[in-house]
């Protein structure tokens, strides 16, 4: 188990390094001029040149990459071009905001998705199953920004019961913050529920059809015990994988939702940095999101291994 984790961490580091090269090259080939995008179209050319020199964007690529890497090695992500604030600080607060939203979304969607998936599997082929499967799939098929606008119109403007932006006023209590986050979290629930329920349904169905379940049933165990001890433990494995992969999406891919709900999360920060050619911010944000992805999948793998004896003991046996 220890060796398995070490190998995964080493692999993760290589992946991150590759990511850093890719993002750096991508920034390099992006058209446009850094100082110009900060100063706007009417700034005098001399002013633009002076700012480029001040920011150091006129130095050779390799020098800048080396500088950036050296900074990262010391835990310093540099300073944002446009905002002239420390990148790690900006990413930190954005990531924290994204985490709050992701947490609330998970808190709602995981139990709902599992419940829905298991129910659908237990009543396979019946109307409940069809309702959950088709309904969940349809909800996922509608893009998140469409849900966002629909929910805002219904709950924020017509019924006027929930705030239309996700950012609670500074210094709000946890409860108020949750109130502000409900609509965006609801969007995510709608988008993720179908996927999660389907994976759980498939896992549960497979477990229900398996030999060990048949044995348990034939052995005379009550249905409730069979489901709890034999079906659920096995069927939840794919669900964990889904949750892990969605963590990355929730902490970095929520661009549309964050923009529509005006929420200062990491997705919004990322778009903005790309838009303004704020390379230190963009590169730092991509790297941090990469780390989040890798950590989430690593944790999922560990949890998976822990729950699944075939993986846990696999190495020792063969």
């Amino acid at each position: 188990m220890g060796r398995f984790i070490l190998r995964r961490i080493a692999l993760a580091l290589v992946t991150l390094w590759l990511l850093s090269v890719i993002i750096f090259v991508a920034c390099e080939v992006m058209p446009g001029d850094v100082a110009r995008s900060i100063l706007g179209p009417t700034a005098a050319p001399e002013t633009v040149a002076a700012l480029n020199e001040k920011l150091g964007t006129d130095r050779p690529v390799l020098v800048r990459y080396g500088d950036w890497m050296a900074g990262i090695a010391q835990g310093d992500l540099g300073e944002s071009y446009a905002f002239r604030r420390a990148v790690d600080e900006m990413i930190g607060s954005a990531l924290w905001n994204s985490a709050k939203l992701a947490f609330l979304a998970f808190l709602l969607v995981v139990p709902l998705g599992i419940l829905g998936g298991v129910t659908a599997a237990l009543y396979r082929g019946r109307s409940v199953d069809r309702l959950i499967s088709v309904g969940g799939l349809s909800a996922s098929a509608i893009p998140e920004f469409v849900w966002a606008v629909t929910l805002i119109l219904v709950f924020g403007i017509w019924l006027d019961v929930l705030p239309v932006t996700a950012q609670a006023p500074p210094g709000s209590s946890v409860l108020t913050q949750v109130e502000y986050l409900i609509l965006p979290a609801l969007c995510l629930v709608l988008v993720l529920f179908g996927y999660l329920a389907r994976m759980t349904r498939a896992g549960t169905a497979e477990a229900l059809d398996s030999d060990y379940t048949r044995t348990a049933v034939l052995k005379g165990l009550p249905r409730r015990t069979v489901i709890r001890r034999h079906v659920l433990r096995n069927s939840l494995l794919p669900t964990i994988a889904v949750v892990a992969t969605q963590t990355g999406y929730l902490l970095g891919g929520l661009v549309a939702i964050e923009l529509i709900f005006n929420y200062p999360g990491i997705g919004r920060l990322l778009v903005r940095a790309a838009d303004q050619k704020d390379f230190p911010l963009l590169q730092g944000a991509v790297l941090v999101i990469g780390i989040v992805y890798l950590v989430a999948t690593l944790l999922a793998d560990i949890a998976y291994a822990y729950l699944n004896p075939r993986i846990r003991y696999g190495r020792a046996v063969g």
Partner: protein
Amino acid sequence: MGEAKRRVDEFRRTSSEVENHLIDELSAGKINRREFVRRGTVLGLSLPALSFIASACGGDDDGSATDATDTTGGGPQAGGTLRTALISPSGALDPLTVGDEGGLAVLGQSGEYLAWSDDQLMLQPRIAESWEPNEDGSVWTFAIRQGVTFHDGTPLTAEDVLATIEYHLGNESNALSALTGALSAGNTKLVDEFTVEFTLDAPNGNFPYLLSSDNYNVIILPKTYQGDWESTFIGTGPWKLDTYTPEVGVTYLKNPDYWDASRVPLADKSEVKFYEEEQARVLALQAGEVDVLSNFSVAGGESLLEDPSVTLIEIQASQHRVIHMRTDMEPFTDKRVRQAMALTLDRQALVDGLFEGRADLGNDSPFAPVFPSTDPSVPQREKDVEQAKQLLQDAGKGGGFSIKLESWQGFEIPDLAVLVQNAAEEIGVKVDLQLTDDGAYYGNFTYGGSRWLDSPFGITDWGHRGVPNVFLGSTLKSEGTYNAPHFKNPEFDQLVADYVAAFDLDSQRALAKQIQELLLEETPAIIPYFYYHLAATKSVAGVEPTGMGHFDLSQAGFVT
């Protein structure tokens, strides 16, 4: 009337030649009262004096003074917290580098300029009490207001003003885009504790605009300023910083010690919230999360236009699109081809379709109808397909041609591009569209590295300016930094230089007429419209936005 006339005569004796000329123009009926007041404020005459002269000398009021503010609800009430939705500033809040609407609007809340360019493009004296040019407009003297204090209690003097201007002249400031060629470092002078003098590079009849809110970087800073605006927000304005949360917003408290008692804020507090997306801003106003929306577009805020609970504020502005045609490249080397392209557009249809009528027609020159110097007698170019076809025939391109139109995906540009494409088809010209993102289109903003400046045919967006000088100088003059059509015309260059130097409206308008006619004839670019600045409020009155994007909330308050 005899007494009034005597007083006017007395005033005229003490006035300069330029000022007397202005009064002549008013008496002769060449300008109306509104333009008289506007020109007078540029020359530094006080508003009470101007309105006295205007009433004494007749001068007809063209009725355009009707205010957009709705006073049926008994006027704005004092107290409360005003909440405004503003587009997020795109970078650090630094007076030196700010170049975006969000940033400039934030600066303008607690900071002040020598003068305020209001929604009618009139200069309202602020930190400067008055100003005066020498005979040819090459030296301008500003009298600085006494009794103004910064938010930290330090009194403001002419030294602070001088330090601010020198700070911009000596650094990589965005203000230089307007000041370059007008005022250079070293040509500023402290006359006494409350007087400063600027010696210009060349005579400039509109110089005060360059130190007004129109050149939004030059808010007056304390002479001890260290580049720390973001942490202090220290200015002299009616609002004082309370809290600032980057990416989220700013809250202000009213400044009870503000120098102008008539502009001490009515509300106790003002909250400016940052929104990245227009859709989020519009929804926030509709849901009642904010009371004021400082700016929105027709395309993004269509639902507001019909909403009975929303009060719209429309301001005529000079923001526009330029469709340039490279005069040094085929197929546009022949001016008849350029004229033909311009004749294909039905401008009224564009204005109705793209802006629901909330725009002025453009006449292929930067002289927007909102500028007082624009000569309205120059005939408007209308759609004329027959003439366009004939011109193409005469130019030897009767069979039409293919051309790529380049621009970027922003504002209403993609829609405009399609409409240009359809219109060109009527005269057999096949237009292919290449719409990229703004970075790819603008490139590095220099010749040889920018599709904007290198493409034969492209659409470019320009923001609002209080005077057309930048549009004329940098986008059309032979040596202009952003001369996308590569237009080289010595006669035009001379006319522009004369125009910039002129400071009575009569000669400005005479030169404008010549420039407008020359550009209509040469057509280096199509300028189809100048669209309005739109703002909206809900249960609030007294908000004063400007075409530039500033908004004055000092006299805003809730209405019942």
